[in-house]
């Protein structure tokens, strides 16, 4: 993941994004599930403690002295946490046990502050915050590891299922998005189906269409450049496309992009949009999650669909970059 952004210029932005991601996954994906499974007796406390004994205590890595390396290590650790959490979540599908989080409790009207998992704040100077986040991510990884072992001990999931999930999820990056884009470039009829039906069309590529609402596809043209945001939280078709770039969750991006999109794209991403083209910002929600269909670059005539897919970057799927001509 860290290879995606070779020049880390904004340390504050990276640390803020880690804190916000950690709190999102901890409060919405990890702790509510552990608590629910304990309450319902799907696992027992004994399973959880037994699971913890099996994993032992993880080695504490030597903290990096260099700030940038330390932040990268933090991001890698967070990626590992998210993958481990997704691995175990995908492993156990219990129809009667929808995990309620504060947001959907509020919407369906049974919100109760007694069950609230508050957002933690990580305060202090940047090194202090990094230290607090290192500790918090390590703790969360211990919890997920113990929870995973507990489910195995309780007979809810098998080692084989977990290994298969992990391998499938690690493969999921922006590669699905790249395949979708390359097919749309070479097959106009597929492109039309993609623009009109979104997720339904990706089945043609043997990509599971997923369950996260509708997929909106915004096509870049000579007249328009599209870019995606989620101003309310951080909705993204991540089940199809993997995680969005790190800056996607920053408040600076969410606030500025809907106020002065063209200037924001220039200042944050160094991308000048031609004055003849309009910029269209798509604000995603959990009902419709948007991706950008970038323009096919010049000099790609005669390239195969697979070669074309290699050109597609994760940033271009969000709209913060265009795709360069090869060579």
């Amino acid at each position, binding site marked *: 993941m860290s290879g995606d952004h070779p020049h880390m210029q904004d340390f504050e932005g990276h640390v803020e994004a880690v804190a916000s991601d950690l709190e999102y996954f901890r409060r919405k994906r990890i702790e509510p599930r552990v608590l629910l499974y304990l309450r319902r007796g799907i696992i027992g406390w004994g399973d959880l403690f037994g699971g913890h004994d099996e994993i032992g205590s993880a080695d504490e890595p030597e903290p990096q002295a260099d700030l940038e390396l330390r932040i990268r290590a933090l991001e890698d650790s967070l990626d590992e946490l998210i993958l481990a959490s997704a691995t175990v979540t995908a492993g156990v599908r219990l129809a009667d046990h*929808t995990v309620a989080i504060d*947001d*959907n409790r*509020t*919407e*369906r*009207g049974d919100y109760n502050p007694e069950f609230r998992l508050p957002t933690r704040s990580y305060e202090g100077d940047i090194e202090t915050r990094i230290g607090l986040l290192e500790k918090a991510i390590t703790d969360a990884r211990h919890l997920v590891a113990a929870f995973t072992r507990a489910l195995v001990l309780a007979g809810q999931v098998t080692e084989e299922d977990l290994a298969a999930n992990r391998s499938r999820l690690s493969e999921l990056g922006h590669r699905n998005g790249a395949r979708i884009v390359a097919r749309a470039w070479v097959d106009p009829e597929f492109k039309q189906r993609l623009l009109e039906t979104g997720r339904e069309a990706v089945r043609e590529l043997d990509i599971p269409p997923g*369950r*996260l*609402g*509708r997929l*909106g596809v915004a096509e870049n043209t000579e007249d328009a450049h599209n870019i995606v945001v989620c*101003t*309310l939280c951080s909705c993204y078709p991540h089940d199809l496309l993997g995680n969005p770039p790190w800056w996607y969750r920053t408040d600076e991006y969410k606030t500025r992009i*809907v*106020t*002065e*999109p*063209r200037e924001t794209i220039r200042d944050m991403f160094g991308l000048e949009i031609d004055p003849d083209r*309009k*910029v*269209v*910002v*798509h*604000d*995603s*929600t*959990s*009902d*419709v999650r948007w991706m950008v269909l970038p323009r096919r670059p010049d000099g790609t005539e005669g390239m195969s669909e697979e070669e074309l897919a290699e050109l597609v970057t994760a940033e271009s799927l969000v709209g913060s970059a265009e795709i360069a001509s090869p060579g």
Partner: protein
Amino acid sequence: MSADRFTVGDRVRVLATVQDGNPRTPRYVRDKRGVITARYGVVVNPLDHHEPYPPLYTVEFRVEELSGVPGPDLVTADLHEEWLEPA
């Protein structure tokens, strides 16, 4: 099931407040005018909604209408029908 109230091309205004409406209507589009560019009907989203909300539309706004910054640029948001009135 009731028919959709709006169709593509309709000019609409987003209401400033709605009782029991979908809470995910972004604040910066409230009380602003836009145009319907797509309609989805009733979206079933059991992960996030207990009961389905009224039909969903993509509404396109001029940035100038939203933030006062002049220019050709646009923002789209996906909004449920209870938030919209004809403009």
